[in-house]
């Protein structure tokens, strides 16, 4: 039972994430977005459930598959799209692409493309928050593959030792690229129970059940703000499209026959719509109106981005160092001193 305004925020986030992702997927084959893109379609649930719970001054980091997290945190859709299109106005100056998103204005501190890479960075954000005596949280989004990196374990350990305000959100979608869990993790091992044994409070849930996810995280986050130390939360979910790119890839046969279809029945968006109708008194018309409003915004965002100019080419050489914003270093030569 999300608080009144929260349910709407969640539903809006669900429509937004799905709508933007579908917009990208539809346009991607035209070849104007020339960078690797990892879609969140099917995995909107957790980000949307967290959308009303994450404060603007909470600091989040994410991975290669960051669109949903970025939008759930309130990141600018236009700046993200411009980044993916490689246009002026891109959130990362057209230098990061889909795998490197940032929106400092809403506390989305960065997503990066090396698996596991931002996990300690999120913990470092938690350290900074703790040192400053803030009650904000650092939030680390990661996948089931990322937990295999040693740096995950090191990061959990340090967060536990220092009791840092770090919330780890693990979206377990059963795959790392084409690899199922089998060759990667011991059979039958529970990730969140293992993390519990590492020394931090851990919970788990169905990430496609948005209402339940909201409820669980509402309590967890409230507790964390009172200084209870780090928490690890594992959510099961599923990606519908290929690992990287806008296509279905069920024909490749790396997922069990029917597995994807089964998960589609548990679609977070449709399920939450149903929940709102059945439990929160939302009418079909109200859902429809909200959805149309969001989709209209998205259409304008795409129109805007496609009209954006290209970035100036010398931008390729800017800002290698903090002090030389705007100063180009020589091409194909050694850098020269200031």
């Amino acid at each position, binding site marked *: 039972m999300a608080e009144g305004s929260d349910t709407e925020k969640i539903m809006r986030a669900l429509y937004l994430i799905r709508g933007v992702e579908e917009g990208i997927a539809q346009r991607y084959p035209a070849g104007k977005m020339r960078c690797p893109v990892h879609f969140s379609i099917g995995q909107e649930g957790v980000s949307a459930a967290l959308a009303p719970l994450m404060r603007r001054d909470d600091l989040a980091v994410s991975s290669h598959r960051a669109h949903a997290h970025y939008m759930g945190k309130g990141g600018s859709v236009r700046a993200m799209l411009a980044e993916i299109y*490689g246009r002026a106005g891109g959130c*990362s100056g057209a*230098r990061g692409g889909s795998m490197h998103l940032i929106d400092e204005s809403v506390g989305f501190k960065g997503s990066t493309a090396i698996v596991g890479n931002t996990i300690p960075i999120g913990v470092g954000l938690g350290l900074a928050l703790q040192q400053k005596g803030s009650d904000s949280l650092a939030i680390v989004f990661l996948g089931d*593959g990322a937990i295999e990196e040693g740096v995950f374990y090191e990061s959990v350990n340090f967060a536990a030792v220092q009791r840092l305000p770090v919330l780890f959100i693990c979206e377990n979608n059963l795959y790392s690229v084409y690899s199922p869990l089998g060759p990667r993790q011991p059979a039958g091992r529970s990730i969140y129970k293992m993390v519990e044994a590492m020394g931090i409070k851990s919970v788990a849930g169905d990430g496609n059940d948005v209402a339940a996810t909201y409820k669980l995280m509402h309590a967890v986050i409230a507790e964390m703000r009172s200084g209870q130390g780090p928490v690890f939360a594992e959510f099961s979910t599923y990606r519908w499209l290929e690992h990287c790119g806008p296509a279905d890839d069920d024909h490749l046969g790396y997922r069990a026959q029917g597995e994807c279809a089964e998960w589609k029945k548990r679609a977070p968006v449709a399920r939450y719509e149903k929940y709102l109708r059945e439990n929160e008194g939302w009418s079909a018309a109200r859902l429809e109106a909200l959805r149309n409003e969001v989709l209209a915004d998205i259409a304008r965002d795409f129109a805007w981005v496609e009209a954006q100019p290209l970035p100036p*080419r010398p*931008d*390729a050489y800017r800002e*290698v160092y903090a002090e030389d914003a705007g100063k180009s270093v020589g091409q*194909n030569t050694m*850098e020269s001193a200031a």
Partner: protein
Amino acid sequence: MKRPVEITFAQAINEGLHQAMAASDEVICYGLGIDDPKRIFGTTVDLKERFGKRVFDMPLSENAMTGIGVGAAIGGLRPVMVHQRLDFFLLAMDQLVNSAAKWHYMFGGKRSVPLTIRLIIGRGWGQGPTHSQNLQAWFAHIPGLKVVMPSSPADAKGLLRASIDDNNPVVFLEHRWLHQQMGEVPESPDFRVPLSECRVMEKGVDVTIVASSYLTIEALHAVRRLREEGVQAELIDLRTIKPLDWPTLLTSVKKTGRLLALDSGAAFGSVAGTIVARVASDLFSHLRAAPLYLTMPDVPEPTAYELTREFYFGAPEIAAAAWKMVKGEERSFPELEREGHHDVPGQWFAGPF
């Protein structure tokens, strides 16, 4: 079913792996996605089916998996590990540098580490700052490592076989833009290209151009064009970066008196810098002009199409630099510009070399 005379670079790697695994039970192959539908850009096709448990997928644990390769190697195997991007391998520098590279030396030669590490270098289509790094200079800076960078399908197979045979840790760098390249490749399982022998690809007397990996393709276009214009460049493909075949290289520069060293890595601490330094030190009196290098700038790779447009240098810049060195005057070679999108391997790229 006879296989065609020409196969791709990726098929050449695949053939080399099949033959190496068939020749010795000691060879094992592993890496993320080694048995998935894409088979590491086709390079590991049918290995799992044929060699079973000697081929396996792995967890996302680059550092441990490198140490496990070292352990398997000192345990009597010849592991071949692969990473789809060099950049991921940065997680494993402790095992590479502190274990693999030093093991033979620091244990008094008691046991060597026959480990081959295939790393794929990305470029284009928005690979960006963390999927396109060229760190051959790093590997070459570490005593005890061998560093190999093939530029043709035949070399890919022959050098890979030699790397797997080799008793040292070998970092084997495959440029992503080469995988689809076609070329003649000897089918024989005995075929090897020895390590530490560079290849004089084109003979010439006016200037020595030193290239490696994908840049060799760009340089070849430049050299052919220069020839039409009366400049005879000698093109050397390093093939092995470390230990480098200094005799061949120095002999060439002695003859031409001019050096242009190319490098796909950043300038500071580059392999090209090392070559220029050694030539300047050892052959100073033979030089007819300042030795030059063309490298990438000391800047990460940006992602956007527009920002990468002029980011890389290629045949036109190589030709212009050589021309200037030999003729003492500026000249541009716009006809060498690649056609089509600059961020994907071009048409001629699939050509016979």
